[in-house]
């Protein structure tokens, strides 16, 4: 069939294999943009602030759920350890939770397949080392201005609320920028930028958290009193701060890589995906929580100060990734047929799965195994039992008859 959006002849299915536009009816007002089907995980909306599918875009749906449960489960364990007053161990685990999960993600999906793992490791380590050095150097300056019951001095507010976050953001970009200038020929995808930015941000956040919590980790500060207050402090430490740092750095890097992606866009790209917007959003995302906790801090307020900017950063990051995957679509496969790791249907190896609409660039190379002639589709990938998901709603692409509730002229209905 001919796609009405890009004009290419695309296999029958719910999505155009070339531009990713929705071809059958859906709730989308703009089927080409398909806001209800996130390009890296079409089961989710672009506006659904899902942490896993944003920061771990190469995971298939089953593993997205699995990683989500692991993250939530470990966060609960860390919270419980804090509540039980095991403050040193809960603090260390909180600082390392998301970085270790990211490492597990990198290992599971093998994002770069046979390409050197040290690239990502070095990016993480550069972020961690710079975080360690900067935090140690600034420790005395930051601590000497702390005040309780009295308003902090303006110089302290400027330092902790503006200067330190800006410096941190600049340092978190060092590792990815080295790769950008030195190895962009090899790592030229927007998702590469996201991966490096997230790794660097997580390294920096882990180092900063460990240095700032050192007195608690070593037991030199008292850890008595109300156990809920000891548990509450693990939430920003384990989840909010690392994800915020990873989000702001990943956002800038994704926008930077997207800006210099030579693939011509299929349509005019949204201003939300531009590099200046990403920079402004990341700077605000770093400064707002720092200023908030410095001027109007508190156990619950600290969580809010970090959670609200994080929500905004995640939504913007999803927008950048979605638009980048849709509007700069390009084929990355071998041109044959492939078993889609997302919906497990055998489809043409085009930029998008014509059945579920996932952007094939968001699938790890390891999962892009061509279907060999005569081999059953289910064995074409290295699919495990954990990957198995029931596919009751997605028809096989060989069946060109639309589902009963979907009219053939779906895109016309959407446009109407």
């Amino acid at each position, binding site marked *: 069939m001919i796609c009405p959006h890009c004009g290419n002849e695309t296999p029958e299915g719910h999505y155009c294999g070339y531009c990713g536009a929705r071809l059958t009816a859906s709730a989308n007002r703009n089927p080409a943009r398909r806001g209800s089907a996130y390009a890296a995980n079409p089961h989710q909306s672009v506006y659904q602030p899902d942490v896993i599918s944003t920061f771990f875009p190469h995971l298939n749906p089953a593993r997205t759920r699995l990683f989500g449960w692991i993250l939530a489960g470990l966060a609960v364990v860390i919270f419980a350890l804090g509540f039980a007053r095991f403050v040193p161990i809960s603090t260390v685990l909180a600082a390392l939770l998301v970085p270790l999960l990211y490492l597990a993600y990198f290992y599971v999906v093998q994002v770069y397949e046979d390409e050197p793992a040290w690239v990502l490791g070095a990016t993480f380590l550069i972020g961690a080392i710079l975080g360690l050095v900067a935090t140690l150097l600034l420790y005395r300056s930051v601590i000497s201005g702390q005040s309780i019951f009295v308003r902090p001095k303006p110089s302290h507010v400027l330092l902790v609320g503006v200067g330190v976050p800006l410096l941190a953001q600049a340092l978190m970009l060092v590792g990815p920028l080295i790769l950008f200038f030195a190895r962009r020929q090899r790592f030229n995808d927007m998702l590469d930028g996201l991966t490096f930015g997230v790794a660097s941000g997580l390294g920096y956040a882990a180092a900063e958290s460990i240095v*700032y919590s050192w007195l608690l980790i070593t037991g030199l*500060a008292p850890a008595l009193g109300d156990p809920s207050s000891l548990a509450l402090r693990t939430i920003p430490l384990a989840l909010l701060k690392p994800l915020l740092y990873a989000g702001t750095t990943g956002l800038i890097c994704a926008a930077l890589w997207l800006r210099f992606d030579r693939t011509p866009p299929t349509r005019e790209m949204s201003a939300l995906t531009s590099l200046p917007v990403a920079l402004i959003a990341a700077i605000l995302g770093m400064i707002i929580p720092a200023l908030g906790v410095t001027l109007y801090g508190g156990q619950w307020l600290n969580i809010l100060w970090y959670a609200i900017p994080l929500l905004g950063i995640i939504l913007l990051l999803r927008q950048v990734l979605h638009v980048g995957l849709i509007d700069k679509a390009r084929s990355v496969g071998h041109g044959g047929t492939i078993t889609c790791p997302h919906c497990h249907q055998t489809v043409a190896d085009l930029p998008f799965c014509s059945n579920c609409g996932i952007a094939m660039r968001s699938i790890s190379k390891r999962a892009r195994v061509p279907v060999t002639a005569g081999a059953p589709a289910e064995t074409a990938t290295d699919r495990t039992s954990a990957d198995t998901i029931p596919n009751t709603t997605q028809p096989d692409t060989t069946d060109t008859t639309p589902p009963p509730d979907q009219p053939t002229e779906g895109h016309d209905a959407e446009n109407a």
Partner: protein
Amino acid sequence: MQRMRRRLPLLFGLLAVALVAMACGAEAALPPQQPAATPCVSNCPPLVGYSSPMKLLSTDHFSFYYSSPPWSVDSQDSSSATLLHDSDYGTISAQFFAVSVRSGTSADALLSSWTRQNLDSSQFAGLQDEGPVNGAEIGYVRGAGEQYAAVVNQPNAPNVPIYIQIMASTQGTSGIVFAAVSPLDPNKPDPTNPRQVRSNAYDQLVNSLSWL
């Protein structure tokens, strides 16, 4: 490269285990705190105060003297005054508040009500009541006092311990509350550190106060 990639998680895993083990065993491995060396062990005279000139601060309800430096006035109005003292570990604050009380209100009652209203436990992690301040008095008027320990809990700043000492005295329908917040542990003074608040620094402030 394949081997390298497989070893990377192992290395990070070992690093994580080492950090966790360090966190578990760090307290036990720390050397015991040695008491500060001082020639006097009991019934000691007060330490020599600051040699800087004394300044008078007056409000409608009280006046007191303070040494400047190290103390500086952060703010004052008709019923309160706040002094600050920089240290390497954070700002030390000492505050006086004049409050009106019903005739016959005890210092204990004033202390309790003021603490309940002003000591917001959500500001800290692990706020712990460390017991009464023995011999509490303000301007030589007998009162009551309580001390607390907690940890400053800001995700973007060092989690340092702080020690809060609050005293209250009443005289007729007047009451005065003194609140000092310090990152320095009063139970482990280090007289060799010239930037540490001296153990009698609060006494100097409190004892010089005159009720107006």
